[in-house]
């Protein structure tokens, strides 16, 4: 891949970054259009697998962009894509946060904190719900989700063992 292509790759992700409200996954159709349909830098299967793998693996789901960069242009692509998708949005977040922190006690900033907090909780609930509906294709998987909710709400124990149990239950065919 030429330097011009790497610059184009960077610009693609950097231009989507400020639009990624609620996470970058919402902009993935545009990534697909550009990377698969227009540039043919990867296949549809590689694209879809990258998203699935980043979601299952530990770490922020934004790492699917790292994988897309890697599929497109190897190591340099992975680095360029990651910086591209994160840099603009991170700068916006950084300075917006400093602005609100400097005016912590202003009426508007207090109103923003108060008004946004319940919305943030509703969106978090939505994210969990959407994953559950898409993933839990039978009653056993749904039961696993419900069990995770109950254990996490009512137990102080580290729920990592439950994730491991879910993986094992899947692997040996219990769910």
């Amino acid at each position, binding site marked *: 891949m030429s330097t011009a292509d790497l610059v184009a790759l960077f610009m693609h992700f950097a231009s989507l970054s400020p639009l990624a*409200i609620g996470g970058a996954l919402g902009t993935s159709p545009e990534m697909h259009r550009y990377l698969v349909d227009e540039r043919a830098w990867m296949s549809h299967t590689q694209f879809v697998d990258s998203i699935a793998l980043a979601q*299952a693996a530990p*770490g922020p789901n934004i790492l699917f962009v790292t994988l897309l960069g890697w599929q497109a242009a190897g190591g340099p692509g992975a680095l360029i894509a990651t910086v591209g998708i994160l840099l603009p949005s991170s700068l916006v*977040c950084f300075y917006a946060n400093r602005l609100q922190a400097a005016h912590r006690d202003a009426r508007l900033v207090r109103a923003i904190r108060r008004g946004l907090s319940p919305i943030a909780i509703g969106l978090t609930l939505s994210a969990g719900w959407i994953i559950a509906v898409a993933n839990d294709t039978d009653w056993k998987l749904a039961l696993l989700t419900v069990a995770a909710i109950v254990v996490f709400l009512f137990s102080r124990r580290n729920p990592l063992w439950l994730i491991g149990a879910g993986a094992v239950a899947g692997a040996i065919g219990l769910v």
Partner: protein
Amino acid sequence: MRDRSTAPASLAELFITFNRLALHGFGGVLPWAQRVLVEERGWLTREEFVELLAFAQLAPGPNVCNLAIMFGDRHFGWRGAVVALAGMLVVPAALVLTLAILHGQFAQIPWVQRAVAGMAAVAAGLLIATALRLARTQPARWLALGVAAFVAVGVLRWPLVPVLAVLVPLGVGLAWRGAKEPATR
């Protein structure tokens, strides 16, 4: 409220903590951010976590990365923001790239697919439970906004940006009016 939370001692502790919570995040990091930062370390109260999360969600970019930036900046300035974000990304990125190289051979194996589905079922449950746990920080009448966001985005699958364009001004407007009342903080 603030005086109940403590602070990370050093940039190294910040890096290690964000690295660890990211590496626990199979299927999503947010439940682990809540668990580690609030329940284990006591670096944020639940109320503070919700407030940071609210800004993190409204700003463009991944919620948990924004959370790391804001939290790091709060304690160590821009260096803290960079270190917390790097802590969350560097090792998981190396890991996910390694998995991607192996993935070509393993992805199509049925038991691997079912293992991932089992893990994702638990991860979804953790995210839902985290939301329910955080909901306890909110006065009941404010939760109506959260329910509205959930129904619109989660159940009806309406696109996020138009939903926020309605709910955010509504929530902030209601809070702006309420901010006058001496009873609210």
